[in-house]
């Protein structure tokens, strides 16, 4: 998996600028290829992009919308990234997200009447815990019998989704015809951010966005500056050397996958507490899977996850406006997303376009 570049003490600013230039140029190239596709299909790319930009960043409401959509992706992106750093491919973040959502939907009702801050903290913690628990069995199977986490976490995703599907149509169903749980009391929901930042009025973005950002920095710090993160990365790179260095590979594997699960669980909790205020079968738009793309786009760097999630959130938010104002099918958004991932990952293309002769990315290997 791609990993953090170690900074050299020399000219950090230049390094940062360079790091930024490449993805920006990549996004630009993706946009150009996207235009060509639109032109061929008979759409007006300029109008499309203008509308898309307006829809994503055109005002407080739009910015809020972009933030809203990036929130679950930050959590799942972090989840997947943490797994990758420990050499684990948590392809089942979606399942952990579902379980997180489930816990919030249930706990939020149980806690009705309690003080809001307490509810929020309890529900976040519980959701993270159940997300971790849902990852724990695959983690245990990986550590003890070597069952591949790609299979097990994916199977647990299906299982989790069917459990939620059953609960919302059965035991936890609210009155009425609709397969959904009861609406959470207000003290079990996340405050909207426009209550604090009026310029975002009347957007729906909620406190979960702030939680996600804080968590991204926290995870970055954990990975880089704590023994726990160090052990995760060591095991991800070389389990044998880690073992020799006194690191328990199985314990680290279990911890890492559970941390990943907890992060994914939080995506579910915040969606339920901040957006839908209840749980139903289809409350996630595949955030767990998009999280893979977000993590990879960010090269598994937690800070990068913030940027990648906002990019994806913006594309998603801009898509509707693009559809309305430029008459371009929303599917184009997916194509552009794919192109961006490609081009950001395949840095050489952007470097080549920029015309850098810098070959630091292409060190020779021998022997």
């Amino acid at each position: 998996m791609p990993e953090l570049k170690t900074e050299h003490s020399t000219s950090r600013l230049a390094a940062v600028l360079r790091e930024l230039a490449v993805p920006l140029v990549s996004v630009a190239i993706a946009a150009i290829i996207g235009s060509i596709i639109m032109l061929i299909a008979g759409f007006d790319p300029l109008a499309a992009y203008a509308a898309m930009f307006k829809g994503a960043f055109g005002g407080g409401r739009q910015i809020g919308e972009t933030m809203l959509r990036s929130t679950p992706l930050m959590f799942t992106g972090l989840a997947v990234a943490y797994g990758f750093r420990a050499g684990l491919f948590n392809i089942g973040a979606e399942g952990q997200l579902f379980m997180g959502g489930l816990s919030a939907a249930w706990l939020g009702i149980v806690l009705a009447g309690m003080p809001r801050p307490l509810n929020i903290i309890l529900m976040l913690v519980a959701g993270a815990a159940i997300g971790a628990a849902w990852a724990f069995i695959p983690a245990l199977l990986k550590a003890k019998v070597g069952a591949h986490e790609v299979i097990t976490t994916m199977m647990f995703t299906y299982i989790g989704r069917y459990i939620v599907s059953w609960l919302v149509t059965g035991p936890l169903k609210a009155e009425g015809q609709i397969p959904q749980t009861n609406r959470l009391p207000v003290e079990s929901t996340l405050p909207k951010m426009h209550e604090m930042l009026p310029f975002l009025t009347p957007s729906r973005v909620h406190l979960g966005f702030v939680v996600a950002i804080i968590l991204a920095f926290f995870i970055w710090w954990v990975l880089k500056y704590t023994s726990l993160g160090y052990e995760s990365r060591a095991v991800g790179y070389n389990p044998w050397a880690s073992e020799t260095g006194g690191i328990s590979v199985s314990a680290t594997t279990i911890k890492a996958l559970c941390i990943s699960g907890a992060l994914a669980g939080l995506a579910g909790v915040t969606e339920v507490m901040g957006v839908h205020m209840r749980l139903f079968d289809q409350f996630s738009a595949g955030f767990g899977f998009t999280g893979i793309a977000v993590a990879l786009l960010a090269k598994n760097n937690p800070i990068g996850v913030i940027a990648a999630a906002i990019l994806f959130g913006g594309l998603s938010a801009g898509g509707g406006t693009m559809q309305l104002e430029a008459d371009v099918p929303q599917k184009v958004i997916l194509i552009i997303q794919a192109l961006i991932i490609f081009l950001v990952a395949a840095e050489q293309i952007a470097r080549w376009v920029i015309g850098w002769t810098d070959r630091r990315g292409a060190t020779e290997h021998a022997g």
Partner: protein
Amino acid sequence: GGGEEEEPADNGDGVEAPTTDVKAAMVTDVGGLGDKSFNDMSWEGLLRAEQELGVEIRALESNEIADYEPNIDQLANAGYSAIFTVGFLMTDTTTAKAPEYPDVVFGGIDQFFEEPAENQAGLLFKENEAAYLAGVVAGLATLDSGLDDRINDQNVIGFVGGMDIPPVEKFEVGFIAGARSVNPDVEVISLYAGSFDDQAKGKELALSAIDQGADVVFAAAGLTGLGSITACQERGALFIGVDADQYETVPGSGDVMLTSAIKRVDTAVFETVKAVVEGTFVGSENREFGLAEDGVGLAPYHDFDSAVSQDIKDAVEEARQAVLDGTVTVPALRSEL
């Protein structure tokens, strides 16, 4: 978007349509247009409004749930005065948005509102009543070997459901009740696919039912059900469509399409737009469309019209009357069977 059809009608085929400044639009649910179900049917209703009332129309697709709200905002801000939100997942959003745009009329397809605002109406359907009639047809058809040589001597019919959610359960339960009302010994096999867009799964489910002796299969499974049609064609069974008259919407299905249990979302949408145009719209209510309102019903038999015996046709008529009279209340829940 829905492509060229969205152009106002006066650009169209020369027929001079009446004009009005009412603009009507819909927000699809995540299934989107092309679902051969309520999204497409709502669009049909808008198309009819365009043609007959000269209304400018528009459809915005939702890729994900997060799109519902901005899509509604976009349309409201773009001057659409009647907005239809399609599917029960939009219930909360519609309720939240209606007070924000008091000049816009909101119609919520398949949505039940607790306290609908003046500019808001829930448009619900008694799917179970349509399915009840389909059940009557199926329950009698499976005994009637003269109807078609694909009818076997076993007293078994099949139901294929998409996801196991209340609207689908209503179809299932109505179908079973209808079949049993005319054929108390009939065995109804009901199978669920777990999704609305897995045709291959829909096919296997129907094959399994057919293998078990079912000779008439009813599918309420969205696109999954299209696979069930294929299964019937392959394995020699008859099919009953859902939502739309699938004889019309699924090309090449005529050889198995006995009838369809239809849910007139188009009518509901059209009538609502018409009320808005005519200024007669009444909100603050949940309108239920059943057999009585002509909001659900049974499609024609088409290619089977001559094969279907008069007895069956009479039985269906009788059942319809019984429901209209209130002598029969069609159950909606499995527990009511």
